[in-house]
């Protein structure tokens, strides 16, 4: 940590990237939620419907992961940039 005071607000681009990282962190929880939801309604429902639901949800998650991962691929989280919770946002 250096003594230089962190800026309170970030440039728009950096801000977007930070939010993208947040999305990347959130995605697995969303995935778990989506995959667990059938436990509430699936019992007795048709396998065909379940098949459609699961694979559609799966495909949507993959697309979201793709959209998030592409811009994040070249982010180098050196010096704790991505993991310091005390940073400005």
């Amino acid at each position, binding site marked *: 940590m250096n003594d230089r005071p962190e800026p309170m607000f970030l440039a728009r681009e950096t801000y977007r990237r930070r939010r993208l990282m947040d999305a990347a962190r959130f995605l697995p929880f969303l995935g778990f939620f989506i995959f667990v939801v059938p436990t509430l309604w699936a019992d007795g429902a048709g396998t065909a419907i379940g098949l459609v639901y699961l694979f559609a949800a*799966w495909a949507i998650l993959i697309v979201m992961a793709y959209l998030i991962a592409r811009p994040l691929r070249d982010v180098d*989280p050196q010096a704790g940039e991505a993991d310091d919770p005390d940073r400005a946002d």
Partner: protein
Amino acid sequence: MLSFNLLLAVCLAYVLFLFLVAFLTEKRARAGKTAWLRSPLVYTLSISIYCTAWTFYGAVGYAARSGLEFVTIYLGPTIVMIGWWLVLRKLVRIGRTQRITSIADMISSRYGKSTLMGVLVTILAVVGTTPYIALQLQSVTLAFGVFAPEGDAVATGFWVAIGLAVFTVIFGTRNLDVNERHDGVVIAIAVEAVVKLVALCAVGVFVVWGVAGGIADATRILDASPIGGWEMQAERWVTLTFLAGAAFLCLPRMFHVLVVESSDERHLATASWAVPTYLLLISLFVIPIATVGLAVMPETANPDLFVLTVPLAFGQEGLAMLAFMGGFSAATSMVIVASIALSTMVSNHIVLPIWLSAQSGGAKLSGDVRNVVLLSRRLSIAGVLALGYLYFRFSGGGAALAAMGLIAFVGVAQVLPALVGGIFWRGATRVGAGLGVAVGFLVWLYTLYLPSLGPSSVLSAATLADGPFGIALLRPQALFGVQDMDPLVHAVFWSLALNTLAFFIGSLLSFPRPLERLQGATFVNIYRYSDSARGWGQSFVEAEDLLVMAQRILGAADAQALFVAAAAEQGKGGYLPDVTPEFLERLERQLSGSVGAATAHAMLGQITGGVTVSVEDLMRVADETAQMMEQQSQLQAKSRELERTARQLRDANEKLTQLSIQKDGFLSQISHELRTPMTSIRAFSEILMEDKELSDADRRKYSSIIHDESRRLTRLLDDLLDLSVLENGQVRLDYDTSMLDEILDRAVQAAESGAQEIEIARRASDERIAVHTDPDRLAQVLINVISNAAKYCDADHPKLKIEVLQSGDRVRIDLVDNGSGIPKDSQDLIFEKFARLGDQRAAGGTGLGLAISREIMARLSGSIDYLPGQGGAAFRIELPAAQAEAA
């Protein structure tokens, strides 16, 4: 029907093809052409070894029995992959910077390069992977059985195991540079990943469009089939999803391809969506194949083999062969990677530590370590496969494939708390991790693994039903009275709950060793400092000994290159760098890439005499630093003081020089002052002595001149004496409280007795002020100022105005005349000794009056200053008033 021999020939051809691929790859890799070898696609495909023969055959069987539940096995890994930013990215970063060789190495390294943790995780991994390898053998054997029912299943399994062992030894330990990535293997795995995906999709397409007649018909068949309704068991659904995700991270082979073989961190970003896509595709046709299989095959048919038997039933021998190759690919790739990963762990964490401790002379005196490493790895591969075969041979054998896979999953998932806790929580300690893994392992053995071996193999049927010694609370499948739970969910729940609890409590209550804390900080904050923590103190080992050892592990060329590079960095030539802690650190990391962190640490420790850093060392270093800083600040203070003293000395010197000049000036002035009256006295007394004819008038005149001059001399001497007394502070002051107007009266009278007349204006009412002072001395000052005014005022009608003002405890006396005043540049000089403006000696002054006045006022705690801008010469005298006695 395909003949057994044809099948065997195809298999061998396929194996030869893989061998060729691997061989060519490594040839290209050695030529430096690694760009396409290390692409995100290859990385993604290598991760697909998650999909083993269990997926290939077992998923269809699973779906035929339980419907959609099979998909949880792929949902968990999907969640882990799309959450790469959270966990996997960190694992890969740690693995790359710390040169982690296996999951056991990871755990051991995190918890202070602990050999014990390495052994524990290795045992867990071996026990957990054995059923899995058995599973692959079983699936291949069953697949062979489909084509050649006359074959002996046990013998087939044996030969497959032998074949895979040879195959893996050739592939996995072909490299003598054991810390290099296995490029050939990875490419072979990627090829096999494509084969199994294509094969399964081909069967799926055939089943949906070739057998069922399109999607609509397939849906109709599905709705009519026994698995048409979704029997959701919520607890199993959630548990299996979680378990699959955990296993995805913890399975030794998965860790190997995800972390150890990772060549570029950015590939993870691609894999984060590409691997889920692969998983989606490979599970897409599972339900259709299962439903169609259930619909068209006889009831006795094994659903695990629908992928093979359905095409065969429709006479599609080519497709069946492709499916067989897919299953074979899935089985072989899993076994190859799993046994490479396991053999690395076994040789690094079990064989090498034992071998090291057996070498009493220390590592540097021993033989070639590399041969030991490679031999132990080859033996480990054989051993792992032998274990798998034995498990296959003596376990239930006919048990459903999926069940065996899940048992293995629960076993390896016991590493999860220590792994995830280790990279996110600095407080996780070796004791906690060891306790957690051990407890989880034992609970898993007791509640799941041993019961799975059959009712009477290890645990008796009575123990299973009533608990050991009839203690119902300890029944393996209803621990602590938790009944009616699915056995798998029960085992997952208890093993991971107790594991996490032990891990947490153990970590809270224990105190980590220094190395452990360093490693913990490094792992948790891996993005902040990617360098590893310093683990070595200053040592006095010879670089040559280190080189000898390093050559035996890394190979002569690599070790020498490393040493030369290190020496060059230190600015030295030759092969032997200075043995600095940095160098030891670097060497250790290189070695740990070959033999694991714990072993590398131990080997270096043997040679360097165990100069690892200790708390005492750290504290001593901290102390020394603090002392040095203290000394430095003291030095700075001293130098500042010296500067100050030097400055003071310079000032004093200047003052002395000035004083000396002043003294010289004073002496010449005083001789001059004394000489003038003396000259006239001598001249006139000579006249009086020699001239007899002087008239009485002249005689009187000359005598009076002599008299005047001698009086002037006396006055001069008196003043000098007075000044010297005042300046030396030897003057005695007679303090008294008296009225200022009385003193002024006295002074004015005395001054008026002098020659010149001056009109003095006073306001008597202002002057009734009591002052506490020496009245005679104050009067002296006043007389001096008044008579000066009388003498030097150049106005036609000289006037002196005396104003007295009391403000607070100070009394101010302003004496202002109506002359032309004193020029500005002379105002500073008038208080100096012998300062006279112009030649006014006739006035009879000694030139010491104001100097004496200033000294007197200073002694009386007052002051006398020239007051400019008043129209004439003006002096302001200030002195303290008497305490609260204003009139």
